[in-house]
């Protein structure tokens, strides 16, 4: 049953992300890859939250992996990385939390609304931090790889 759930989530998240990608008009040849980025991010989020992890942490890990995959795709296709990120992070955006916050405020339950609002804010922050961390780490890795290559070449020449 659990396996079945995951398979359904894989398929559904692919179509959802690809649909968002169409709305944002990504280049046609990268549509499938955009969908794939979304699937990877969502399935990590889904499995982690099913295991009982806090949504804030799960969002962080989801967006971290999204940024890494997007960076690799961006290098492969030689197009800006934002194209792959945008579709991928939409499922992680805390729409539900923001909705609950709004709903509680409308129902005059400001305290509960504030609680949901803060949670939504935290999740947004986690997504952002995940993206930034991944970007910085990848840049460090590529730079060290490049410099070690240069060193190797110097050794060869000697």
């Amino acid at each position, binding site marked *: 049953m659990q396996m079945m759930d995951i398979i*359904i*989530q894989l398929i*559904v*998240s692919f*179509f*959802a*992300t*690809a*649909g*968002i990608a*169409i*709305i*944002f*008009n*990504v*280049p*046609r040849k990268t549509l499938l890859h955009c969908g794939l980025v979304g699937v990877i991010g*969502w399935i990590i989020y*889904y499995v982690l939250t099913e295991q009982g992890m806090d949504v804030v942490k799960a969002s962080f890990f989801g967006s971290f992996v999204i940024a890494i995959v997007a960076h690799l795709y961006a290098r492969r296709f*030689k*197009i*800006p990385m*934002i*194209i792959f*990120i*945008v*579709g991928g*992070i*939409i*499922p992680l*955006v805390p*729409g*539900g939390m*923001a*909705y*609950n916050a*709004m*709903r509680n*405020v*409308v*129902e005059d339950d400001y305290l509960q609304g504030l609680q949901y609002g803060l949670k939504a804010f935290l999740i*947004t922050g986690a997504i*952002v931090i995940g*993206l*930034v961390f991944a970007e910085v780490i990848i840049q460090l890795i590529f730079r060290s790889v490049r410099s070690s290559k240069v060193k190797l070449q110097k050794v060869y020449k000697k």
Partner: protein
Amino acid sequence: MVLQDADNELTIDCLLLAGRIMIESGAETYRVEDTMLRMAHSQNMPNAQCYATPTGIIFSLGKTQPTRITSIPSRVTDLQKIALVNSVSRRLTSQIITLEEAYDELKSIQKTNYFLPTYLQVLAAALASGCFLIMFKGGWSDFPIAFLAGGLGFLVLVIINHLTRVKFFSEFTASLVLGFVAFFAVKYGYGTELDKIIISSVMPLVPGILITNAVRDLMAGHFMSGMAKGAEAFLTAFAIGAAIAVTLGF
């Protein structure tokens, strides 16, 4: 000397056009500046200075030449144009195409509408809404309502955007329409979970690209652009939230 000036004019036109298309299509500001400076360096303009914001670009060549400005009144999200301009700039900097070819190509990019036909976009939004419902643990029985509400909401967004050009208003109306569709569907027994239907059908309207760009600009040190884009994202989120609040108030 005169010839040199005319040459410079063409280069600056080309650079400003590239930057303008990128900002109009929703690229990050730091990427726009980076692209323009790279192109400038490849055209023998080592002292070029560039300052881009979401509403305009200032570009200067140095002491002797006049500074040029281009203002940008409206922005949409069109990732394909960003990719195309990026490829033009790559080819120009690696000397595969000449400046004239690049300028012609940029002009045709600016004129062309790369969006898919509206009905396909609406269909994509509807499908995405339905899929989001399943992702947020809704039941399959609510799938058709989320599909309908998401598609209708996006259709209203496109129509009103076309009519008025006031983004806040079109987002508000779109959310209002999809909220009412969901509300009445649940009231007359076609759907079961109002919350999940509304959340999932609102997802295509979420300003995802604005949020990402705002933060990436902030991290790159472009605080003005980051704050401006953050404000735009907040306005969109507020429009959606206000409309949903009106629906829930019933």
